[in-house]
């Protein structure tokens, strides 16, 4: 009488209400290891993933060509290279840290602060693509086009078009590029943040609203609260807000002109 095959697969059917799910378990660790080996080396992988992936992996690892001894040697060389690279990287990072500390001081601040401020602004803008469009286009007339139509009744009707995300980003980016002092850069960025957090999007239909948020909103409000409530920036911001709201008889500058600033 032939022996029954060993039980290597256990299945458990679970009633999920609308359907059944089946959990399958392999009980033989050696068999599972064999499956992994075959998955890694078997021809089915090559068939299914295609020659291109194979070539890509060969190019990346450089270990599939040649005999197993050559592959071993290639791996050894790779490990030695990685070890040397790690040592070099450690040395480079230590030097960099030392240089960063050494360069600190008033002279360096004076010489590089504008470039530093612009670099930080570039990072903020790159990481917050929607920020300028979230607020500035609602408060700055340069980012709006107002078309005024006079109806037969003599009544005037306005149609406001707003700059899109890329146009707003370009506008802010240009202003930062033109800034002459670090403080000016920070002021422009602060305008963007304040407008981004405070500008009321209710004037737009839902579909036109821009979704932007920052995890530091409360902190920004606290830090820049005094900035937008008083002082020069506030006056300027208020003036710009006022301009955009009291523009009923004006026609805003086209975006293209604003972008050329």
């Amino acid at each position: 009488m032939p022996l029954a095959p060993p039980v290597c697969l256990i299945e458990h059917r679970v009633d999920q209400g609308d359907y059944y799910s089946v959990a399958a378990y392999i009980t033989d660790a050696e068999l599972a290891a064999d499956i992994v080996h075959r998955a890694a080396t078997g021809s089915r992988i090559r068939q299914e993933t295609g020659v291109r992936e194979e070539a890509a992996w060969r190019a990346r690892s450089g270990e599939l060509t040649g005999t197993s001894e050559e592959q071993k040697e290639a791996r050894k060389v790779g490990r030695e290279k990685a070890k040397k690279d790690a040592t070099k990287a450690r040395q480079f990072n230590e030097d960099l840290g030392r240089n960063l500390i050494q360069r600190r001081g008033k002279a360096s601040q004076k010489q590089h602060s504008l470039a530093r401020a612009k670099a930080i602004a570039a990072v903020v803008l790159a990481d917050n693509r929607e920020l300028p469009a979230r607020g500035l286009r609602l408060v700055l007339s340069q980012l709006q086009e107002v078309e005024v139509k006079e109806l037969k009744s003599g009544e005037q009707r306005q149609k406001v078009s707003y700059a899109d995300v890329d146009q707003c980003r370009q506008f802010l980016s240009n202003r930062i590029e033109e800034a002459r002092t670090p403080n000016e850069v920070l002021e422009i960025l602060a305008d963007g943040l304040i407008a981004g957090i405070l500008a009321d999007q209710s004037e737009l239909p839902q579909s036109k609203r821009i979704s932007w948020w920052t995890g530091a909103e409360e902190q920004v409000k606290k830090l820049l609260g005094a900035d937008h409530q008083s002082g020069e920036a506030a006056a300027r911001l208020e003036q710009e807000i006022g301009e955009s709201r009291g523009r009923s008889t004006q026609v805003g500058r086209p975006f293209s002109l604003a972008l050329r600033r």
Partner: protein
Amino acid sequence: MIDARRITVSKVISDLKERTELAERINAADRYLVSEDPPVRLDETEIDAARAAGLPDRAPGRPG
């Protein structure tokens, strides 16, 4: 017991060097599911075959 739909390399291969090598090979086959500990699974047809035979007797499916 090892989940047939997710056999991770670390669960069945104890030798670190061998494990790393297998993981590299499996990762190379599927660039979109790269993991330090990639899983290999039997697909439905392979489980059917295993069910019929009492053990999986066909080549395994793609990593996933």
